[in-house]
């Protein structure tokens, strides 16, 4: 019983840190790291729910696998965009990202 709350608490704090990071950083790469942390927090909660509430249904674990793939995807596409922008604009700072073209 206690572990459930410990896990959920850790998930919540990690989510908080990820949110702070994503919003406060000016660099695309750092924002992506914030998002990764938030996804990690989500996974912690998912595993906690599966373990303590419905261990017989494996959909929970399945969902965690999906979140893991999303993490990988988010990183891949994020760096694709970062490379594209870096080549065109010479920087990946979010301040100058006014227009979407190019």
């Amino acid at each position, binding site marked *: 019983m206690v*572990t459930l709350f410990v896990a959920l*608490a850790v998930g919540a704090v990690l989510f908080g840190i990820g*949110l702070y990071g994503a919003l406060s950083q000016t660099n695309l790469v750092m924002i992506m790291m914030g998002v990764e942390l938030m996804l990690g927090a989500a996974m912690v909660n998912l595993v906690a729910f599966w373990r303590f509430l*419905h261990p017989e249904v*494996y959909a929970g674990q399945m969902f965690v696998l999906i979140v893991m793939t999303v993490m990988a995807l988010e990183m891949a596409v994020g760096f*694709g965009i970062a490379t594209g922008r870096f080549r065109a604009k010479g920087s990946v700072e979010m301040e100058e990202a006014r227009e979407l073209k190019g």
Partner: protein
Amino acid sequence: MAQAVFTGSFGVAAIWFGVVVFRTSSMVRSALALLFSQAAIGGMFLAMETEFLGVLQIMMMATEMAIMAIFMVMYMMDPGGLSEMDMTHQKRASLAAGVLGAFGALAVALLAGWGPVEVQVPAATAQVHDLGIEIMERSMLIFETTGVTILTAMIAATAIAIQRRH
């Protein structure tokens, strides 16, 4: 009870590394701090007896975050963190948002009635076996679509990154 202690300790490690990710000025350090925080999350999975997910998480994160370290070095202004630049803006607003989010989630976690808690969980080998069956039978469709999504993401990322021949 021991399980709570283990999960808690891995959790504290994950949180501490998470904080280091955004506090340090050297980019490679923050990338590897994220690596260790994700590995700590993997450790939490192991502590909660979902062994396959824990091992998978630890394995994946090592490669992923190392690649992130490369991109950090490539794109950041001064990766060594020599001149203590402050790379943040609207600090106060984001801090408030973060704290608000954390407390919201905590409130839900503590207050909601989660109902009866299972104590036993199938043995690790049984879990791996059942997860395999689950992937192959019930959620076969989900697994296939994930595969295809990964493919499209790869193609999209390369298409964006390629230098257009003009």
